[in-house]
């Protein structure tokens, strides 16, 4: 599904991505963990197309997308959520999702018919909102949603683009325990429906519950990639990461 | 023989040199304006259309003070101090409320300031151009090279401008204030995190920029026309300078100002004859001046098309 080879990105003297090799298989949930400053955000930005790598290749569904812009990647089926909540605050929850549906439909140079009454946008959007459990809040401005709801909305927007691969950048960031729990349950249901996901997350509980495989990023390198149990026992990982955290 | 053949070449060379000097002089004036504007824009993220008004205020206050005290130098001193004070008052009374707003609100409000200052100056001093005097020794001209006579005053402008540039370089790179300024231009939250009194820093920087604009204004007085609205004549060019140079960068302002000054001057001097050798002279006659007046805007469009954040972007 996604194949990354020798991805390298430099900021001045800092080597933020140091020859990363990384694979995601169809249908798996692949988590990326690593200590602060390990280069997770740089890595995901390059996957999403917001940063251009200095060297290396990114192949998505058999196609080299290394040089494609973020919107082009999104249209090819690479959905993402942001670490810092990123919704359209002046739009209602339903409109937020409808925009994502519209992005996928590819018919956005229609200037006359009101989008608000366009059933081909509204109905799929309602469905996704229902899936993430925000149905009752569809008419509320995104700015007025609770933080957890905004995160859910963000995932809903990513889902509404019917992605083949979902990049989730710390979906639990800033959430309370209860909210996190709900989000984990929701991601679990996504996982069961065999949606391919790359999950960057600090919440180890979530990572070990959800991930099929885990890659550990240390100093811009992939220190290890393996199933959760093996990662848990991997000495290098413990030294570099878990030990530090514990 | 040899001499006779070389003479026209030397003449052209001298002419070119003199025009270059003219360009530098214009550039230096633009720099004095641009330095303050680019700092305010870079640090406070404030689009200040009224920067030209401070230039005007500097020119008027200097004339008024010189008349009142009878001394040119006291006039200069009071004019500078006046511009500084007016700038700080403007900052505290109106602009402070606008930092958190978007550029649009700032453009609107500072345009309001322009209207206010222009009309206020007209009410106090009338709408006619004012005469601004100079000490006798500044009024003469010197022969720089054989056949090349240059007004002393313009040489003084160049000297003052370059001195200010050097001083700014020193302040920005070698002092604590400069460190804060540089930090502020690239990362505002960091400066706040350092526990610096941001309000005070802003007021100081704004006053500083106002004084520089006032300096430009008072130096412009004796060669340009001191009249209400004089600031807007130069303001747009100054915006071109800082946009070409890159917002928030003093170095960019200097380089941008010199480029704009030289391009504008050389364009006015040599574009028509140059065009005349390519297209027919009557066509050059028509196109030359039109093109010369558009030249700096063209330059800016090209620079931005290639480098959307100017030559020396201060941020990231």
């Amino acid at each position, binding site marked *: 599904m996604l194949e990354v080879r020798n991805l390298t990105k430099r900021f001045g003297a800092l080597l933020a991505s140091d020859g990363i090799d990384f694979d995601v298989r169809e249908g798996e949930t692949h988590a990326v963990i690593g200590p602060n400053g390990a280069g997770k955000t740089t890595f995901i930005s390059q996957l999403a197309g917001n940063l251009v790598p200095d060297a290396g290749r990114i192949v998505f569904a058999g196609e080299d997308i290394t040089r494609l*812009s973020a*919107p*082009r990647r*999104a249209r090819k089926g690479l*959905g*993402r959520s*942001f670490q810092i909540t990123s*919704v*359209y605050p002046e*739009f209602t929850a339903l409109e937020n999702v409808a*925009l994502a549906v*519209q*992005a*996928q439909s590819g018919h*956005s*140079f*229609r*200037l*006359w018919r*009101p*989008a608000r009454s366009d059933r081909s946008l509204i109905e799929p959007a309602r469905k996704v909102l229902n899936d993430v459990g925000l149905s009752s809040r569809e008419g509320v401005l995104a*700015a*007025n949603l609770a933080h957890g709801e905004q995160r859910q909305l963000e995932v809903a*927007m990513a889902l*509404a*683009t019917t992605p083949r691969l979902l990049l989730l950048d710390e979906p639990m960031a800033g959430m309370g325990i209860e909210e996190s729990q709900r989000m984990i349950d929701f991601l679990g249901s996504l996982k069961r429906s065999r949606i391919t996901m790359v999950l960057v997350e600090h919440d180890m509980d979530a990572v070990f519950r959800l991930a099929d495989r885990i890659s550990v990023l240390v100093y811009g390198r992939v220190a290890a990639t393996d199933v959760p149990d093996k990662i848990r026992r991997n000495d290098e990982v413990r030294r570099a990461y878990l030990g530090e955290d514990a | 023989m040899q001499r006779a053949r070389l003479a026209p070449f030397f003449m052209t060379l001298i002419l070119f040199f003199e025009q270059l000097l003219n360009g530098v002089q214009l550039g230096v004036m633009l720099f004095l304006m641009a330095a303050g504007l680019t700092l305010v*824009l870079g640090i406070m993220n404030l*689009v200040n259309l009224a920067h030209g008004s401070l230039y005007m205020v500097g020119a008027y206050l200097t004339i008024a003070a010189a008349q009142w005290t009878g001394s040119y130098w006291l006039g200069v001193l009071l004019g500078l101090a006046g511009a500084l004070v007016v700038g700080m008052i403007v900052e505290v009374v*109106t602009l402070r*409320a606008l930092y958190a*707003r978007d*550029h*649009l609100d700032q*453009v*609107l*409000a500072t*345009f*309001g*300031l322009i*209207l*206010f200052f222009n*009309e*206020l100056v*007209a*009410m106090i001093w009338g709408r006619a151009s004012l005469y601004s005097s100079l000490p006798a020794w500044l009024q003469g001209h010197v022969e720089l090279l054989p056949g090349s006579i240059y007004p002393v005053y313009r040489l003084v402008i160049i000297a003052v401008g370059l001195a200010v540039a050097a001083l700014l370089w020193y302040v920005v790179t070698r002092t604590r204030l400069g460190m804060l300024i540089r930090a502020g231009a690239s990362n505002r939250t960091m400066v706040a995190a350092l526990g610096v009194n941001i309000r005070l820093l802003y007021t100081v920087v704004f006053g500083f920029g106002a004084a520089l604009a006032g300096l430009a204004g008072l130096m412009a007085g004796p060669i340009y026309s001191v009249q209400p609205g004089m600031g807007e004549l130069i303001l*747009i060019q100054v915006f*071109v300078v800082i*946009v070409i140079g890159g*917002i928030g960068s003093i170095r960019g302002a200097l380089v941008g100002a010199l480029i704009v000054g030289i391009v504008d001057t050389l364009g006015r001097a040599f574009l028509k004859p140059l065009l005349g050798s390519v297209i027919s002279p009557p066509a050059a006659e*028509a*196109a030359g*001046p*039109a093109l010369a*007046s*558009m030249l700096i*805007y*063209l330059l800016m*469009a090209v620079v*931005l098309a290639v480098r*959307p954040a100017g030559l020396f972007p201060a941020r990231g």
Partner: protein
Amino acid sequence: MLSRRLVLWSVFVVLLLALPPVVVALGQPFYIDLVRRIMIFAIAAVSLNLILGYGGMVSFGHAAYLGIGAYAAGILAFYGLASGWLHFGAAIAASALVALAIGSVSIRTSGVYFIMITLAFTQMLYYLGISLALFGGDDGMRLKTRSRFPLLDLGDSLHFYYLVLVLLVAAVYLTHRIVSSRFGMVLRAAKSNEARSRAIGFSPYAYRLLAFTIAGAMGGLAGALLANHTNYLTPDFMHWTRSGEIMFMVILGGMGTAAGPVAGAFALLFVEELLARWTEHWQVILGPLLILSVIFFKRGLAGMFYKPDA
């Protein structure tokens, strides 16, 4: 909510429809011309609002299209072509083309750079206008013949007034349709959160460029109307302070609202008119008024009546 809005707009339109007979009856026909001029600027402001209020593009060069529209009509009239369809068609097409060209370069930049580059392009057009000796250069020229339409005489104050009114309503309605269409949603979304838009697959550039072009075309229409209104055109139509004025109408009235630019045009031009009658130093009052309005009416005049859900 929607229907209430519709009622208010209807009241507004009816008032404007009723204005001419009322002021004529009161022996004050001059108000027809004043309101007509205001409505022409309101069309320009409505067009700017599309890119500024809904698209987040702070164009400081919108007067360019006023000028191009005026010159398109003026130049055709100069060569003896009087057809209004031709005048207005050319005005719209020419300004759309120029907007397309300016936009394609400018939209690559953002923030202050965008403000300044749009200003720079307009300055270039301004100096171009000054150097067009054939068309009067800086002096400008008289519109040789007013735009001619079947059944419609723009020389007639009333005919012209109602034409402008119809076009203003059309411009407001068109803008309303555009901003609530799929296209408009993308445009507004890109203003609201560009990173998010890119992440779900929109490249804002093309949408912004099209909006910029449409706004330019509408501005050109206002320009052709203005040329007919003054019966005269000059490069001054493209002066940067004119761009500023149009911008202020939008901000004063309230950006990104349908009524804002119209309200702003009426307010600014009425206030100007009243102050100018009162004292020659009107700018010393208008200046602080603008500042106060910025500081205290954060959402413009429309914001005084319109409570956001927040």
